[in-house]
Each structure stands twice: as structure tokens, then as C-alpha cells.
């Protein structure tokens, strides 16, 4: 059952991911954004299969809820009528294919030559309590630094989006 679900979610994630970057029917950024939401939802499904329940919820909340809505809002803000006619150029497609293929080759070659030695049964449970304990004990300093980073980003965004900077 779990294995079937894995294949379903993995297929969906890859299919939607493909439609994000190279949708044969539409070059519209909105379509890409919608498929990215679906990719993220499928990845959340994979996270659930990996028993990372907290991260699955956070993934949906932050990515599908906040990040993608931000993307869509910016798309609505910008008038992207001209963008719909974007054609993929051969040179760029070939360059993209070569580099993507190269990095895929490296990944897969690594996997084949040094297969992950850990074939023990999966055990880690990503419950809220376990993650919280770790986050507020061992990773307290990075956690605080990340909060400062968010503050810095917030100030930066407010400054950037001012219409007339002085």
C-alpha cells in the first residue's frame, strides 16, 4: 500500500514539476505557478509517507499558502500579457538539457556506485514534539538567527517596494 502510494506521489511530483518548467500548452507563469502548487502538494504527500507529518503541514502552509500566493499576487500586479508568447529557444533548451542531464548523470552515477548503505528499516518519526524538543535545545541559536533573518528580509522588502526611494 505504502509502496503504491510512493509511486503515485513520486509520479505526480515529477509530472507536475515537468509541467512547471516546460508546459507544452502554455507559457503562462500562472499555469506554472498552479502546477508548482500541485508539485508541492505531492511532495507533502511524500513527506507524510516518510512520517514527517509536521514538515508536511509546514510545507503546505508555507509554500502553498504563503509563497505561492505571493507569487500569484505579483503576477496579478505585473501586467504580463507579453510573456504569454514566450518561445523556448533551441540554444537555451539544448544548454538546459545538457546541464540538467549532466547533473542527473552525476547524481545517478553516485547512487549506483555507492548505494546508500543504510538499508535498515526506516525509524525516525517527525512528530511535532520530537522536532520541537530538538529545535529548542540543540538548534536554539540557529533558530534565533533565522528569526533575525526573517526580520531583515521583512525590512528589506518594505524598503524595496517603496515607490520613491530617497
Amino acid at each position, binding site marked *: 500500500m505504502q509502496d503504491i502510494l510512493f509511486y503515485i506521489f513520486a509520479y505526480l511530483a515529477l509530472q507536475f514539476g515537468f509541467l512547471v518548467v516546460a508546459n507544452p500548452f502554455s507559457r503562462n507563469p*500562472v499555469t506554472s505557478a*498552479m502546477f508548482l*502548487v500541485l508539485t508541492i502538494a505531492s511532495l507533502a504527500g511524500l513527506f507524510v509517507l516518510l512520517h514527517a*507529518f*509536521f514538515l508536511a*503541514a*509546514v510545507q*503546505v*502552509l508555507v509554500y*502553498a*499558502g*504563503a509563497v*505561492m*500566493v*505571493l507569487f*500569484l*499576487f505579483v503576477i*496579478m*500586479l505585473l501586467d504580463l500579457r507579453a510573456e504569454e508568447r514566450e518561445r523556448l529557444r533551441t540554444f537555451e533548451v539544448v544548454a538546459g538539457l545538457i546541464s540538467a542531464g549532466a547533473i542527473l548523470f552525476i547524481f545517478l552515477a553516485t547512487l549506483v556506485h555507492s548505494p546508500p548503505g543504510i538499508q535498515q528499516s526506516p525509524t525516525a518519526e517527525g*512528530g*511535532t*514534539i520530537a522536532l520541537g524538543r530538538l529545535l529548542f535545545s540543540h538548534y536554539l541559536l540557529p533558530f534565533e538567527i533565522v528569526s533575525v533573518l526573517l526580520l531583515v528580509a521583512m525590512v528589506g522588502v518594505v524598503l524595496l517596494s517603496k515607490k520613491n526611494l530617497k
Partner: protein
Amino acid sequence: MTLTEGMDQVFVLLKHWLVGLAGPHWQPLLSDLISVAALIATFATLFAVTTLLERKGLGRMQNRFGPNRVGPCGVLQPLADGVKALIKEDIVPSGADKVMHFFAPLVLVVPVFLALAVIPVGRNMAALDLDSGVLFFFAVGAATELSVFMAGWSSRNKYSLLGAMRAVAQMISYEVPLILSAIAVIMIAGSLSTVEIVKAQAGYSGVIPHWYVLTPWGFAAFILFMIAAMAESNRAPFDLPEGESEIIAGYYTEYSGFKFALFFLGEYVGMFAVSGMAVTLFLGGWHAPFSFLTWVPSWLWFFAKLIALICVFIWVRGTLPRLRLDQLMNFAWKFMLPMALLDMLAAGLWHFIPAVSARWLVCSALVLGAYAMLARGLIQGRKVAKRTYQYAE
């Protein structure tokens, strides 16, 4: 088992009996299916009742009758509305993005029902008892913004797009105080599970229950949560996304027939979901309001509280005029957000001050002081005078 316990658990026992009829292999699946069916049936019925209640109640508030033609006193009006929505022609604009236009109502309706799943409607009656139920609730609720965007953008109509932009801006802004005011409760209860949060509010001192709304920080958080909930569900006075006098009907201008009905359903069930969350977080879930009333079945209490909150929604809609967009944004970022943050601080102090009288004093002072200062800041620089009419006199 006494009679009161039996009444309390009647639906749980019924489900167990039904599940017991099936073979052992099918039992988990059947159990889930029964929960889902019960959830959908209950809240769809509640939707019908609420539309009638709202139209009748609003009618009375506005000094008119409301629907009174179909059936005795108009009680069959929801049925007539449903039939009308079903047999109307489904119009899709020729310039629309057909696929997105089709999926927008579904993206609204499915997540709001999913969000209902984590709310415990009675003792042992949560369809889905998740470890991080509150997080799940807000994560699923995020899909409504996507649906609004899809509806507004795919219609290729300037009013739809304007409505969608307003709605998305409003929902992003009010989601922050909504979640922050829930965090105060999560901090005190020490759990993200809705069942645990309800359990943390059990017990009575004398006849008074231990609900979070009866503490200074809880009361402030409850008010903030309800205001943000009204904005999240696009209800008056926060209904500028669909302000019919300016932008026709906002993001669902181009919807008709059953898809429009689905939007309507989604909006109301979203309201039930967020009210149910308010009941769970602040009003003690299914616990009785007084210790001598515990013999009443728990699910009855939950739905009584839910309907009371819905009546508040209707009352507010009948009372307050629509806000302007700048007022809306100022209110969210300059009042609600700092208030919610200070309320979290108050909840933290409540946890760490041991003496009962001291914590009441400190938390009340903090909440009231914050309210006074922020309200003054919001009013400042604004001339409040009696409105003068040039021609209407």
C-alpha cells in the same frame, strides 16, 4: 452505562455498530467513510439552515420580512434556492481559462470540508485526531486563497481580477493575526492537537468552566480571532472583495448556476470551520458552560456554541457598514498584529506568574493598556466629527 452517557455517545456507538457489521478487512475504510459522510451531511444541512437563518435574521434587522413564500414561514426557501441553482444555465465566458475556471469552486469546497475534519464536535467525536491538528487546519485553509485567485484570474474580467486582488491582500493580512491569536492558546495548552486543547479546558471552579475565553489574554485573543475570521471568510464588514456596489460580485462575477452555489457553500462551510475552531480554541469545545449542565450531550453543546457564533456573524453583518480598503489594511497591520503579539506576551506571563491574583492583574493591565494605546494610535490624526450631508437633508 447511564442514559446521559448513552445520549452523549449515541453517534459513536452507532458508528461502532455499523463498522462491526463489515468484515475485519474493510473496517478501517468503512469507519473513515462513515465519518466523512456524517461530516458532509451535517454541515451541508447546517448550511441550508444557516442561509435561512441569515436571510430571516437580516430581514428582521433591516425591518423587512425576509423569505416567507416557500413553505410555512418560508422554511423551504433553501430547497428552492438549491433547485434554482441546479437548473440554471452554467455560463463560462469565452475568453476564460476554462480549466482553471472549472476547478476554482472545487479548490474552495474540498479544503473547507477537510478543515472540518480536525474539529472535535463531541466527546470522542473528532473525525481526525492529528498530532498537529491546528497546523493542519490552517495549512488546508490556505487553499481558499488559491481558489479565490483562480476564480478571479481565470474569468478574464476586470471586476473579477480586482475582487481577487482585494481578497488575496485581505486574506494574507488577516491570516497573520488569526494564526497569532491561536498561538496564544497553543502556548498555554501545550499542544497542537485539537482534542488535547479541548481536554485542557475541562474542569470547573465552582460552576465556572476553565475556558480560555474567561482569561484576559484568552478574551483578547478570542475577539481578535473572531475579527480575523470574519475577514478570512469575506463576510461583512470585510466583504470588499465582493462589494456588489463597486465591483459587482468580485471574484465570482462570472460564475453562475451550480458553480456559484458551490462558492456560496464554500464560503459558509468555511465560516463553520473557522467558528468551530474558535469554539475549540476558546469556548471549551464540547464542554458544558456550567458544571450543573454536564448531563446535556456534548455534541449538543458544540453545535449550540457554533450556532451562537454564526448568529454573531449575522448580527455583525446586519450592523456594520463595509470598510474601505485603507481602513482594512491599517486595522490589520497597525492594530490587530501588534495586539496579537502583545497578547502572546500576556499569555506567556500568565503561564509564568504563579499567584492567581497577580497574573490576573498583570495580564489584564497588559491587554487593556495595549488596547488603549493602539486604539489611540489608530484614531490619532483623524478628525472625528459628525457627518454633514450636502444634498440629502
